[in-house]
């Protein structure tokens, strides 16, 4: 064996969701159900290209004036302007006064990365608060950037609801200046969002402790079907005067997962600081990806800037959210009909792509082994993976494993 500098390179532990998807794909069982990855599926459990996206891509394919030239480091202006307006409201005073900066990024992940890196490098922030549980990549990214990670309580397994007392206490105890990662809507993985009153309480503590709110908005329009409704929490904080970072993803609400369409929004109290902030973001982006990919951003910009397309898109959001809500309802009903031990109202109360079912790792392993139902070991299911055809089977599977381990 030749000499190698890599002899100490161990096999890294695989990332759970990708590993499960791979296992699912290799599984030959005809009844298999994939409730893992967070991607929308139609009533036949198939990926769904939004009709509005198809229409726009057709127009783009027929447009001979389009090319593949570089975008600016900060991305396509028509996209970042439209995305920022979509999020904050076109007439939002922070936009009108030039205090909201939007930079195109590699989807939501890229926006988080760019924002986190700016906070770490330029604002010298050292601590970050992440909900327990949260999207796995929040922690991975924070570790990578060497933040001190603090978890704030969120999901209460016994009540199957948000542990507000714990959440507020943990924020209260945080060091001043710490970043708080908040899920704007459709919390991943629980699907459980604070009420408006609870958001106000959260804002109070953040203000009092001078924490820095960083919203992760991956599901605007995808949670309730209403774009403004889903942006409520972000707009509330901005309206209260907070300086805030917001990562925006168009992966789910446009079905443009692999086109990596995202936007980092920063709201500053000081309009003079905006070009300075941009200059630093440009430098960070330059050494990550130089400039962001064009194709997906063009599609979104076109949809948002064109009234007819915008209406088409809203109809697509309604289609997706109605189906998901229906599946939540059916699953809950089936479990209640079966008399499955436990309470199941949370499945309907939760919003968006995911539901924290409350199932244990043991349940989950058994579901995979016995029923070829794939879900995350923390009990998370992607509701989008349910269909009228498989929801009974899934309910019966849940029922079986819960009773078996009782």
């Amino acid at each position: 064996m030749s000499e190698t500098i890599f002899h100490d390179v161990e096999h890294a532990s695989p990332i759970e969701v990708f590993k499960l998807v791979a296992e699912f794909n290799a599984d030959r069982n005809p009844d298999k159900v994939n409730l893992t990855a967070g991607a929308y599926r139609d009533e036949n459990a198939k990926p769904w290209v939004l009709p509005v996206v198809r229409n726009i891509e057709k127009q783009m394919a027929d447009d001979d004036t389009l090319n593949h030239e570089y975008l600016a480091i900060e991305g396509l202006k028509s996209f970042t302007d439209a995305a920022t307006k979509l999020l904050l409201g076109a007439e939002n005073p922070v936009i009108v006064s030039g205090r909201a900066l939007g930079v195109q990024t590699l989807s939501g992940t890229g926006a988080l990365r760019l924002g986190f890196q700016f906070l770490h490098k330029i604002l010298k922030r050292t601590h970050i608060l992440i909900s327990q549980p949260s999207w796995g990549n929040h922690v991975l990214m924070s570790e990578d950037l060497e933040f001190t990670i603090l978890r704030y309580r969120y999901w209460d397994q016994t009540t199957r609801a948000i542990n507000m007392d714990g959440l507020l206490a943990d924020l209260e105890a945080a060091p001043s200046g710490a970043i708080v990662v908040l899920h704007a809507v459709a919390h991943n993985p629980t699907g459980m969002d604070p009420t408006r009153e609870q958001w106000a309480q959260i804002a109070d503590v953040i203000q009092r402790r001078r924490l820095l709110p960083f919203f992760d908005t991956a599901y605007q329009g995808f949670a309730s079907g209403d774009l403004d409704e889903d942006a409520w929490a972000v707009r509330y904080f901005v309206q209260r005067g907070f300086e805030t970072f917001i990562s925006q993803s168009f992966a789910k609400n446009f079905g443009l997962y692999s086109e990596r369409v995202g936007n980092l929004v920063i709201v500053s109290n000081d309009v003079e600081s905006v070009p300075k902030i941009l200059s630093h973001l440009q430098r960070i982006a330059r050494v990550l990806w130089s400039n962001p990919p064009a194709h997906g951003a063009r599609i979104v910009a076109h949809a948002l800037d064109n009234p007819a397309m915008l209406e088409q898109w809203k109809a697509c959001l309604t289609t997706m959210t109605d189906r998901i809500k229906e599946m939540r309802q059916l699953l809950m009903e089936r479990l209640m009909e079966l008399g499955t031990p436990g309470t199941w109202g949370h499945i309907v109360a939760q919003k968006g792509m995911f539901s924290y079912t409350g199932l244990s790792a043991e349940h989950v392993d058994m579901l995979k082994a016995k029923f070829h139902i794939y879900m995350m070991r923390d009990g998370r299911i992607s509701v989008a993976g349910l269909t009228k055809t498989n929801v009974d089977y899934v309910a019966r599977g849940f029922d079986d494993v819960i009773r078996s381990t009782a």
Partner: protein
Amino acid sequence: MAVSLCSNILRCQSYRTGSGTVGSISRQRPLSRGVGTSWWSNVELGPPDPILGVTEAFKRDTNPKKINLGVGAYRDDSGKPFVLPSVREAAQKLHEADLDHEYLPITGDSEFCSASRELAFGEEAAASGRIVTVQGISGTGSLRIGANFLQKFHAGDKKVYLPGPSWGNHTPIFGHAGMSVGSYRYYEPSTCGLDLSGCLSDISAIPKGSVILLHACAHNPTGVDPTREQWLAIEAAVKERELFVFFDMAYQGFASGDIDNDAWALRQFVSAGHNVVLAQSYAKNMGLYGERIGAFSVVAVDADEAKRVESQLKIIVRPMYSNPPLSGARIAKTVLRDATLRKQWLADVKGMADRIISMRQRLSDGLVREGSSRGWEHITKQIGMFCFTGLNPDQVARLTADHSVYLTKDGRISVAGLSSTNVDYLAHAMHQVTK
């Protein structure tokens, strides 16, 4: 409990956009006043991008004869962006296939990765099973993956040696990844060519086990490439110092017009036993600039090591951007794997290279015709997108001020910015400032 959460949400008034009114929550704050002082008061303005500055100044110039030689993208003879016919056709085919936009794996499209591996290393080496290739965000992203990987795992000095000069973004990419950066002599200003003896001398002084970065072809920014003989001498020096080699190949096919010729140095090093890493870009050779298509490869000792390395590359990618963009990768792999399209592409890329080569020739001829007594052979000896003219900053300033020719202070021009309508004007202007 769950039901009451639901009804809470239903009872609230919806937020009205733009009115500044917040639902049923009573706490209101005036919009003009922030919660506290700004977080950003200590944020200084970052330094401006020098190349961007050139383009901005060019845009403001009203001289109809103005030329922008700062552009880092290919232009056709009318000065327009060029969509390669093979790429256009591939995109059309893909559009008709009506595919979805589902997430790619962290490592990208596997067929794209295989095709990239073959393109770079040649079919035989690619089939060995010991080269791992992952999709990267064009050249920048691929370099970044490599820089992060070396910073984490390289057992030797976490220091990379770049040629002097090198692409401006190399230093910050490696720096941000936590590597320190050194250099070895490369460009010789007096000849506008390679400083071979300086290069070999510096290489032989690099601490053993360090990382050396080599431009596979069409050196950026100078356009100066070693001859094959010179490459062999460099390879021997690198081997003697047991250096770890990082190849940056952003111009395969675009340099000489021949993809195998342009990959010669890379393949030579691999067959000489160097287990290199490689950053590949499709920005120029497929004109896919804004689609951000590239690849990062590691030549491992065996298939098992390749698998282990791949697992670690995923860990690096995931917290940066999760997974790479699809549409450009689909185009690239379609072009590479379809016999007809691939043939078309080879002709397209040769066409671009030939136009660049012909512009070099015309510029050189033009300077002779103008009566310049300086030597300008380097213009045709250099290769690829860029040419280090040998003009000093003073002459560059005059070229811009007196003739509206825009280029960077180091005297670098983008030959892609030349066309049959402006090359003679440039020859004239260059002669005026150097005679």
